[in-house]
């Protein structure tokens, strides 16, 4: 059992790149549409909520509401982009298109495939998050150049949510089950992580829950750099995010091995 799991792990440090490049090539053919699709949703939220609610809310934590919201939307866009890629697109490659099966005939191991898929989903998250960061910085809602520190955090956030979504992909019998993850996990997380309003508004118990959510750690890192403020507890936030990226990776690998190599 353990031997079998070891054989399914990534074969080396670079094999996954072939999987990543396959997805990149497929994406290149529809790049513009894909980017616009990824950008539209968070942009609408940002300007819809930011300007609409902003009039009523006024300033939040010393910043305009739209600048406060911008950091949240950057993190949320990374979360959404990598989640959707891993749930729908990776599931299609595993299940209906049998792309993974073809890969398994080669030097590539299951671990390489999972790693390549996660890296690709994180790349898409990085592109979506970066695009919004650029737009908000250009419009003056984010501080320049400290906003650049947000970029690696966006990538890490992408890894985290790709990794978590891979568990759902590994367990789902069909596409229909993804909606449960989206509505029961991601949507509550959106409201419990300080993306749209400050966490200290919440009752104590909810604040405790929020501290366990990966999205709140991502926002705790992204918001200060976008607003050019000092960050506290960098190591803790990065550490939690790293755990959220790594542990689900191994868990999803084990689940996928059981599913595909039985």
């Amino acid at each position: 059992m353990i031997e079998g799991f070891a054989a399914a792990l990534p074969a080396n440090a670079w094999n996954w790149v072939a999987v990543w490049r396959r997805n990149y090539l497929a994406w290149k053919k529809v790049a513009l549409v894909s980017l616009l699709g990824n950008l539209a949703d968070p942009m609408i939220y940002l300007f819809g909520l930011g300007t609409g609610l902003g009039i009523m809310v006024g300033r939040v934590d010393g910043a305009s509401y739209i600048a406060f919201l911008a950091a949240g939307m950057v993190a949320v866009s990374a979360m959404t982009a990598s989640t959707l890629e891993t749930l729908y697109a990776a599931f299609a490659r595993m299940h209906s298109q049998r792309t993974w099966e073809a890969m398994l005939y080669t030097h590539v191991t299951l671990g390489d495939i999972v790693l390549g898929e996660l890296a690709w989903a994180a790349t898409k998250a990085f592109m979506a998050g970066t695009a919004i960061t650029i737009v908000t910085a250009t419009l003056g809602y984010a501080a320049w150049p400290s906003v650049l520190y947000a970029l690696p955090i966006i990538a890490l956030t992408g890894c985290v949510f790709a990794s978590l979504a891979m568990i759902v992909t590994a367990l789902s019998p069909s596409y229909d089950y993804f909606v449960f993850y989206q509505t029961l996990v991601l949507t509550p997380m959106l409201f419990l992580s300080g993306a749209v309003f400050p966490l200290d508004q919440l009752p104590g118990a909810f604040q405790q829950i929020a501290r366990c959510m990966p999205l709140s750690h991502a926002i705790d890192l992204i918001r200060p750099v976008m607003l050019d403020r000092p960050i506290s507890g960098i190591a803790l936030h990065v550490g939690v995010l790293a755990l959220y990226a790594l542990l689900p990776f191994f868990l999803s690998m084990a689940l996928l091995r059981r599913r595909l190599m039985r």
Partner: protein
Amino acid sequence: MSQDQKHQVLKRKLGPEDLRRFETPAIERESHGQTSAKSSVPDSLSTVAVDFAGVTKSYGNKIVVDELSFSVASGECFGLLGPNGAGKSTIARMLLGMTCPDAGTITVLGVPVPARARLARRGIGVVPQFDNLDQEFTVRENLLVFGRYFGMSTRQSEAVIPSLLEFARLERKADARVSELSGGMKRCLTMARALINDPQLIVMDEPTTGLDPHARHLIWERLRALLARGKTIILTTHFMEEAERLCDRLCVLEKGRNIAEGGPQALIDEHIGCQVMEIYGGDPHELLSLVKPHSQRIEVSGETLYCYAPDPDQVRTQLQGRAGLRLLLRPANLEDVFLRLTGREMEE
């Protein structure tokens, strides 16, 4: 016909041009600086390409492969013949290390599988039952991307792609999307894709299922070209005709058990040994008693009576004067062997 004789015949059919194309494996010609896929497989010159010994696999209470043993020699086309559900695809998956047997040992190209399956896969090409090409990519891109999974650089893949396109007869379709190809072309591309790592062993899982007769003949012809090139082929099929045409040896599977093994003609001679008369157009049970004394064996399947008769003229005489009967005298084939061994029709 011995295996050597058979190859000689194939070579004559192929003609010198075809053979020259296959004399030098494409990857070896171009693989400067790359570890050749072929050379890194230990025992690549071993005469046994694949060995299954007492392999058992079950899912829950269902035994899918039952104490299966067989050996495939280098350069031969070995068939796994059986109805759907006989365990053919599971055997192919175990051979590739994609699923572990519950008991028994598997050796592929001198390497224990699944323990060192990744190493074994260097020398294996796979043509799967279900199309898993990248539909949104062009023909060329499919080959390029697949080469990368074997660690081949773009330059290395591009060097072998022309010969692969030529093999697949897709030179003019190199930049066409896969979704624009016909079923036969897709299967040819899948075969070409399986050759990108210049494998010694090619596993073909139901390669002609779902193809029209033209495409099927094209695939058979390409498959023979691979044999002429010295490749070892494991072919799973439920088409008796396909197995009879292509396989040097085959094993007949029923419920995961090896119920007979040998060359197609040897199996036919051993289990049937005479011509077969098919009789239809009447009540088979009524006819049964008429022809029984003159038959070695009789099978009824649906409305057809299969009469294994050493002297068919006697049967003909018995049936003379009966209106509406149609008689067909033909040489025995593998299907007859299968019916004989399992006592029922193949489940399509």
